[in-house]
């Protein structure tokens, strides 16, 4: 199968991005270097192509009830213009996907799902809808092909984001300025430039991200996303904005212990085991996977996610490396890298629950040798 390309493919080529395969997509892994881009996001600002991610609209009088029986978090808590992180689980608690869900209007919800899971998720969501008592009141649309997205992240994004999205929001969260959006809020802007050609395309701007920094995620029609990207790079100059690839996206999220589907989460791993129980709402009533997840929460779990850092000089830990404790192989690394912020090897892995204690001593096996590591509290990196 040939690789899919985002609408920003030619922009990446023009900027000298190094392209790799990711989840069936041809995506930039880096432009200058992973460390350079990573530190740029921690200190200034970076823009990421996230067009590969999937978008789904769930609309109608039955949408809220249908989503609440399908997702782990409680969408009733969302006011118009608010978003939340959630998982979608199987009956046995295994994770189908992790996602963001926003309430755009009283009866309109918007889901952002992982690129590698679009086909699985859409089939799963449609199957659940067919089985739902609320199916007659729900309109389902997979908008992944017609919508595109970029993430603009870093402490200096606030210096230029208003010139990209001027004026007040027109839907979602009522906001006098894009800077008035709070974390997890989303608003609609209909112009992304100041040349007077408003009204332009509908662009949703959310104060969310995947880096541990302040920032925005921008969802726009595919045909205008290159305009948003180019305009952002032009006005972002004042905040030292740089294009950033998937390499930095991965090191940034690993430092702050955000899960990546296929690593921390998969169909054999539950959000409870992954340490994401905060996003599982047991008090909202029945939902798919509830019984299995509740049993795990009450102690019936087989593994537990831990964050660790290497304590001796060692090669960087990487996914798949065995984890040892007390002379026994006890688990596996699922994410690992050299932390550009801390300049030390860091990672996430799974171990038996009894061993998942901050300060606990581990060893990571790298090419047949074992190197000392220590379990640390999440996040591994915290802003000073």
């Amino acid at each position: 199968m040939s690789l899919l390309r985002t609408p920003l493919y030619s922009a990446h080529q023009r900027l000298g991005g190094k392209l790799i395969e990711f989840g069936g997509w041809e995506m930039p892994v880096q432009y200058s270097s992973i460390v350079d881009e990573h530190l740029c996001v921690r200190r200034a600002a970076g823009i990421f192509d996230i067009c590969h991610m999937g978008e789904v609209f769930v609309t109608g009088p039955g949408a809220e009830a249908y989503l609440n029986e399908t997702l782990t978090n409680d969408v009733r808590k969302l006011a118009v213009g608010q978003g939340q992180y959630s998982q979608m689980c199987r009956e046995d608690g295994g994770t189908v996907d992790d996602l963001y869900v926003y309430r755009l209007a009283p009866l309109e919800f918007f889901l952002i799902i992982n690129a590698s899971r679009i086909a699985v998720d859409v089939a799963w969501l449609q199957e659940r809808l067919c089985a739902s008592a609320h199916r007659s009141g729900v309109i389902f649309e997979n908008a992944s092909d017609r919508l595109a997205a970029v993430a603009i992240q870093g402490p200096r994004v606030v210096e230029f984001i208003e010139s990209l999205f001027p004026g007040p929001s027109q839907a979602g969260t009522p906001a006098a300025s894009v800077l008035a959006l709070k974390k997890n809020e989303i608003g609609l802007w209909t112009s992304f430039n100041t040349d007077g050609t408003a009204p332009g395309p509908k662009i949703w701007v959310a104060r969310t991200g995947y880096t541990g920094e302040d920032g925005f995620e921008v969802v726009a029609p595919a045909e205008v996303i290159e305009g948003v990207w180019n305009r952002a790079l032009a006005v972002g100059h004042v905040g030292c904005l740089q294009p950033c690839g998937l390499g930095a996206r991965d090191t940034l999220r690993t430092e702050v212990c955000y899960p990546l589907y296929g690593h921390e989460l998969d169909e054999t791993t539950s959000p409870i085991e992954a340490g994401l129980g905060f996003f599982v709402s047991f008090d909202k009533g029945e939902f798919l996977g509830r019984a299995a997840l509740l049993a795990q929460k009450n102690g019936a779990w087989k593994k537990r996610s831990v964050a660790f850092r290497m304590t001796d000089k060692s090669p960087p830990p990487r996914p798949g490396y065995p984890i040892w404790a007390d002379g026994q192989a006890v688990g596996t690394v699922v994410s690992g890298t050299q932390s550009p912020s801390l300049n030390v090897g860091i990672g996430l892995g799974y171990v038996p629950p009894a061993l998942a204690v901050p300060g606990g001593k581990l060893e990571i096996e790298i090419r047949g040798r074992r190197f000392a590591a220590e379990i640390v509290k999440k996040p591994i990196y915290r802003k000073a």
Partner: protein
Amino acid sequence: MSSQVPSDLRYAKSHEWVRVNGDVATVGITDHAQHELTDVVFVELPAVGRVVKAGEGCSVVESVKTASDIYAPVSGEIVGVNAAVSANPALVNTAPFGDGWFLQIKLSNAAEVENLLTPEAYKAQIGA
């Protein structure tokens, strides 16, 4: 990005360079290779005294992105390794043909050097 290919060295297809002085070959990785890796964060060197065959894996270089094997371009005994590059792996990025060298091999068959790529042939391989 155009990469340097010094004219006084010989090259392996797998992007190592060789500088021969008497019967000792100094080995490192090329400017092109360090550009591809970027952000070198760890270099694992072999034990001095180990005997390697041409084409055998004898070091590992790790960038933030990935781990890559380094192959002995020639056969012989490892007679020296660069402690500086082990302590400061970024030397591979900043001085790939100088302070960023990896190891020295005492040639067991000097004729093998002639099997390596000339600078012109290596330039053609990397499109420089």
